[in-house]
């Protein structure tokens, strides 16, 4: 069911409306799963995934997906940063505010604050939450799940996605303004799923993640299924201190020779940096140790001291502890 949850008249154009889709098996569900996408206007994979999930859940609700039944409540917020999505940019130029730095928001505040507050209010009774995103501006992420609170319930939830990689994020001064942090503070088991790069819709990646999200719905008991559950067991879990960031020491044009998601051995070449004017190679980047390439620079123009790649290292990680 599509519902308008916030409506803000525009000064000169159409009214801005924030919508959610929701499905529930009963009036008092034991489980509520919230799935949010479009926090930044350039994160298109999440929009596509949520649109696929919406079609699937409509089919479940109307009995066309006979293997599945609604058991709890599922609500999908396909577009959070309405103006930025409409302008095709990461941020909305009107206020240059990062919406994921606007939480908890303010009901009586500016547009971004009203949206943030509305999302938080409508997800407050959730037991589980998922934010669908992509790599940061200028970067590509291998599909993986991120969490702030690596408790057993959240790790099990991440495992149900069927992704190879789950990582813990460090708390930071800016993280306290994120939706993920506020869900955590409300004891909502929550994950951020990052897949691909901004400004790009990668259907293959999204389609591979779709089944994982359905499996997560089953795992959290928001859905029930007559089919066998399919929880992956060989998930790599990386602690927050397992990141290894490869930095540029010069500036130029970066070309990569690997793909995000590869497992690299120490010494494997990541790519090289060329001088824009001469074309000469300035430096080559190699994996400093064995690790999983979770983030790779996709925008070629590179300043000095910028991250080229982030490796999740085996040193501080381990297979999923069951």
């Amino acid at each position, binding site marked *: 069911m599509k519902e308008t949850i916030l409506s*803000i*008249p*525009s*000064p*000169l154009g159409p009214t*801005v409306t924030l919508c959610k889709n929701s499905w529930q098996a009963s009036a008092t569900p034991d489980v509520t799963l919230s799935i949010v996408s479009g926090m930044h206007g350039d994160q298109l994979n999440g929009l596509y995934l949520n649109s696929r999930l919406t079609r699937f859940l409509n089919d479940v609700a109307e009995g066309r997906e006979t293997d599945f039944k609604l058991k709890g409540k599922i609500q999908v917020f396909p577009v959070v940063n309405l103006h930025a999505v409409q302008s095709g940019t*990461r*941020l909305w130029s*009107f*206020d*240059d505010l*990062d919406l994921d*730095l606007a939480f908890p928001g303010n009901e*009586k*505040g*500016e*547009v971004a*604050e*009203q949206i943030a507050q509305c999302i938080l209010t409508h997800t407050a009774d959730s037991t589980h939450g998922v934010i669908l995103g992509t790599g940061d*501006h*200028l970067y590509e992420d291998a599909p993986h799940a991120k969490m702030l609170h690596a408790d057993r319930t959240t790790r099990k939830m991440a495992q149900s996605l069927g992704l190879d990689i789950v990582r813990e994020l*460090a*708390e*930071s*001064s*800016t*993280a*306290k*303004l994120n939706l993920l942090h506020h869900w955590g503070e409300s004891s909502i088991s929550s994950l951020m799923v990052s897949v691909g790069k901004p400004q790009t819709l990668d259907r293959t990646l999204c389609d591979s993640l779709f089944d994982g999200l359905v499996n997560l719905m089953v795992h959290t008991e928001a859905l029930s299924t007559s089919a066998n559950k399919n929880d992956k067991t060989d998930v790599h879990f990386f602690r927050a201190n397992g*990141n290894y*960031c490869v*930095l540029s020491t*010069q*500036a*130029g*044009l970066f070309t990569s020779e690997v793909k995000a998601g590869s497992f690299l051995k120490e010494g494997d070449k990541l790519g090289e940096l060329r001088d*824009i004017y001469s074309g000469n190679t300035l430096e080559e980047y190699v994996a400093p140790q064995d690790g999983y390439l979770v983030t790779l620079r996709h925008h070629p*123009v*590179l*300043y*000095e*001291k*910028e*991250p080229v790649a*982030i490796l999740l290292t085996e040193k501080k990680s381990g297979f999923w502890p069951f």
Partner: protein
Amino acid sequence: MKTYTIASYQSPLGGPVEIIKQTFTAVKDKPVKRIAFVSGLHGDELEGVFICHRLTEYLRQLKETHSQAFLGEVNVYPAVNPQALGAASRLWPFFSVDMNRQMGNGNGASLAAGFSNALLDDLKSSSDIVVDFHASNLHLKELPQIRIIEEFGKKLIPLASLCNTDLIWVHPTAPVFEATLGYNLNRAKIPTLVVETGICLRIHPDFCDQVFKGMLNLLHNTGILNLPDPPEVKPPLLVNPRQVALIQAEHSGLFVSSIPLGSWVKKGEKLGDIVDAVNGTVMETIVSTADGLLFTLREQPVIYQGAPLARIALKETTQP
């Protein structure tokens, strides 16, 4: 004056991008105090850049004519976000990142976080007092004021009172401050005043002159400069959140103000209209909700419901 580069990075198209620090040393080896003036964290906030220009110009002349006046050390960081200033944009343009939301621990290995924390570290290691100049954003115009988070009030209010601003606004803390320069320096026990004046992308010489005189008074009264003839300054109003009335839009539209910033207004007095430009109607007449000083006024007319239009310091305020 000595010029230092405290952080730099190479650009893909050529020369380095640098944060410059201009240092005016004390006449004695051990300065009585060291003060830092910082501007340009947001690249579209130019009022502080101009105030730093005024300070550097004044201090250079003073050094040449009365070098004995320098009992302490003065450091001026006039343009700490060089590429954003070059693009006149609030955010660091290539990354779309707010440099004043990158301070402190745990914000990753990005260039913006590294550069921001290089500035923070340099200020921590070479300052006893810091003044961080800001203008308002694109939307609001502000009378010269100093904003202080409650927990730092005891230490900062006496210093802020010297600065010739119209207002000192003491407010509660919020998570958004934790990644800012001012908060992190104050937490590190380096008293830091955050000055807010004017509006972005503009220079108001009268506001800048007012703050410039305040800075000279601050330098004199903290013993950093021994000025024979320090400027006269006015005492500011000291307000807490209960003494500030915020007026917000109930309708989206175009806000057209009808009263100048800095006016003393009466309750019920008209501040402006919100008009519907498509239908040619006035949707809302905005009036003052209290007697007091109009210290914030909406400048950018396009507004959505909930947008702040004005702030009034209530008449029943105190002086520090």
